[in-house]
């Protein structure tokens, strides 16, 4: 029983990170019809911003995290929108998708070339100690990651639902034309979405890198897991992304423990196939109709 609880908490912690990344996917899709296949690399990169701030500019950890987050928001949010999305989206979704695939390769190879191919250690957010709850020992790091992930999601939901700007962003996502007619600055709302994605990927990066180490290949599997989480949960619903991420983290962990490490990826992919076949809008997504 203790093992199951520990696996559950560890899975939820990992799943919270997948959820943060998957939320970024869904937000970008909802507001700007952007499918960002560089999202995994977007999570890989902020860790290197932090490492550069520490090793080359001599900052201590938390100031480096602040700088890394700011750089992520600017580069992976504003600049990404301005230099990649805006020029490509007018040609349709497919060219933009291909552009993001190319961007992913560019980012990965740039890190390998200019920083290094080796994995790098990253300072942990919490001490390597165990906390005993109800007689079961849980890793402090897992609890901290889970707590921060939940707090970030709750904060985002409050922002989207309880603030004027958040409601404007939702209106833009639902119907940009109507939102424009109501006087909502649609372009600004779309920009905010990209900036929020930049912050989310930075947060995910800082949470996951202490455990997985900073390496240029981290984006490959992270992006895939987050994409599966977004599809399974529902690509057009933030709460779907949350559910998908948490589900995927738990399923992956239990599959590794009780099936095999070799086939741990098989179960999430199987779930993806089943969802696409029988509930293509995702577990919590809504069916979208288009007029032709």
């Amino acid at each position: 029983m203790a093992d199951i609880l520990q696996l559950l908490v560890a899975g939820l912690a990992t799943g919270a990170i997948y959820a943060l990344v998957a939320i970024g996917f869904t937000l970008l899709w909802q507001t700007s019809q952007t499918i960002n296949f560089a999202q995994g690399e977007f999570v890989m990169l902020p860790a290197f911003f932090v490492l550069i701030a520490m090793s080359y500019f001599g900052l201590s950890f938390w100031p480096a995290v602040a700088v890394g987050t700011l750089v992520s928001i600017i580069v992976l949010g504003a600049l990404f929108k301005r230099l990649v999305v805006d020029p490509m989206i007018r040609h349709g979704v497919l060219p933009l998708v291909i552009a993001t695939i190319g961007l992913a390769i560019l980012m990965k190879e740039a890190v390998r070339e200019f920083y290094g191919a080796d994995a790098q250690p990253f300072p942990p957010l919490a001490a390597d100690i165990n906390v005993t709850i109800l007689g079961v020992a849980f890793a402090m790091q897992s609890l901290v990651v889970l707590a921060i992930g939940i707090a970030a999601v709750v904060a985002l939901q409050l922002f989207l639902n309880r603030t004027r700007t958040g409601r404007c962003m939702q209106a833009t996502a639902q119907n940009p034309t109507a939102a424009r007619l109501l006087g909502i600055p649609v372009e600004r709302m779309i920009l905010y979405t990209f900036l929020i994605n930049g912050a989310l990927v930075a947060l995910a990066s800082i949470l996951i890198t202490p455990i997985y180490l900073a390496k240029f290949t981290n984006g490959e599997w992270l992006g895939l897991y987050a994409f599966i989480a977004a599809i399974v949960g529902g690509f057009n619903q933030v709460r779907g992304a949350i559910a998908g991420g948490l589900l995927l983290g738990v399923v992956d962990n239990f599959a590794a423990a009780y099936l095999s490490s070799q086939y741990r990826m098989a179960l999430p992919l199987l779930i993806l196939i089943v969802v696409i076949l029988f509930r293509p809008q995702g577990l919590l997504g809504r069916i979208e109709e288009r007029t032709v």
Partner: protein
Amino acid sequence: MRGMKLGPVVSALLLMAGAAGAADVKLAYVGEISGSIAVSGGNFRDGVILAVEEINAAGGILKEKIALSQLDTQTNPGVARSQMQKAIDGEPYVVLGPIFSGNVKATMQLLQQAEIPHLIGGEAGELTTLGDRFLFRTSFGQQIGMPKIANFIRDELKAKTIALIWVNNDFGKGGRDNLMKQLAERNIKLVADVSTESGQVDFAADVVKLKAANADAVFVYSNEEECARIMREARKQGLKGPFVGDTTLLSQKTIELAGDAANGVMGHVGLTADAPIPAVAEFTARFQKRFNYKPDHNGIKGYTAVYAVKYVTEKKLGKFDRKALAQVMHGLTIAPKDEPAILIETTWDNVGEIDRISFLAEVVNGQQKITKILPKLGK
């Protein structure tokens, strides 16, 4: 008039052609510069580069400078084969690498057919059993290291049960098979046998399995990055040790990546930059000055490989002859008094297997501390 203008041009071209034709001896490094084994491959490559720079600064081998080409296998056997073929097309004197045992297996036949000596970094036990007369190790095979660590588990740790976590590639499988045999011979029971994947990042579920086994000791046998991640996860979940391994668990890169999580791990190391040998300490200092990081055992492997080639070519052959080099290296012993850059007395047997002294070590406060020196098997 035209002839007068042509003359100087032709002369200049001939001069340039003559300069380009000045003999360089070609060495090819074909190894893991990227991919999951980049840590090991990068160290090995840098050891090679340091040796090449030193030798060239001293005049080269038989007065010919070394021209080193570097090709990246990307830790992928398919890519390794094509890169090796590319290297062979360049007609190198010797090939150095690969380090990843899977890539060695994928490429050794090409080199054997081309009759090019290759000094590998791979440690999988079977590599020297495949009849390749041109293959030479730069570190112990697992069949040498595992008996030593099994003795340590039996005699020093007095462990009756072991939980094993290993990487599912040629290196890991070979180590697991060798270890299981050695443990069985010593009546030590394997109570957990956890296989993991190369490049794996999440070990939470695997560590839960190790905890459930409740063994006297945990044996970790994976590549450096994965060892570091396993140790971090193990400490995170409070898995009790002791933790034991062979070479990779105690390597410098593992210690750097694992941080405090590496403290207390113990094991056998065939080669180490922390060996209490002055020549090794001097090499480590030069390597650190050149590359701004401390080498692990792979750096020593790459470095000594080049100097072994130099020694045989200059002192035993007096000429560049690939086949003769391979023949001479079988049964050869190089001592530091003959070639100081070999660092530790090294012997190759008739299948290319290596023999040297080795070490038992423990990680203390982020440093590898040698606790015992083990003699050569041949002594």
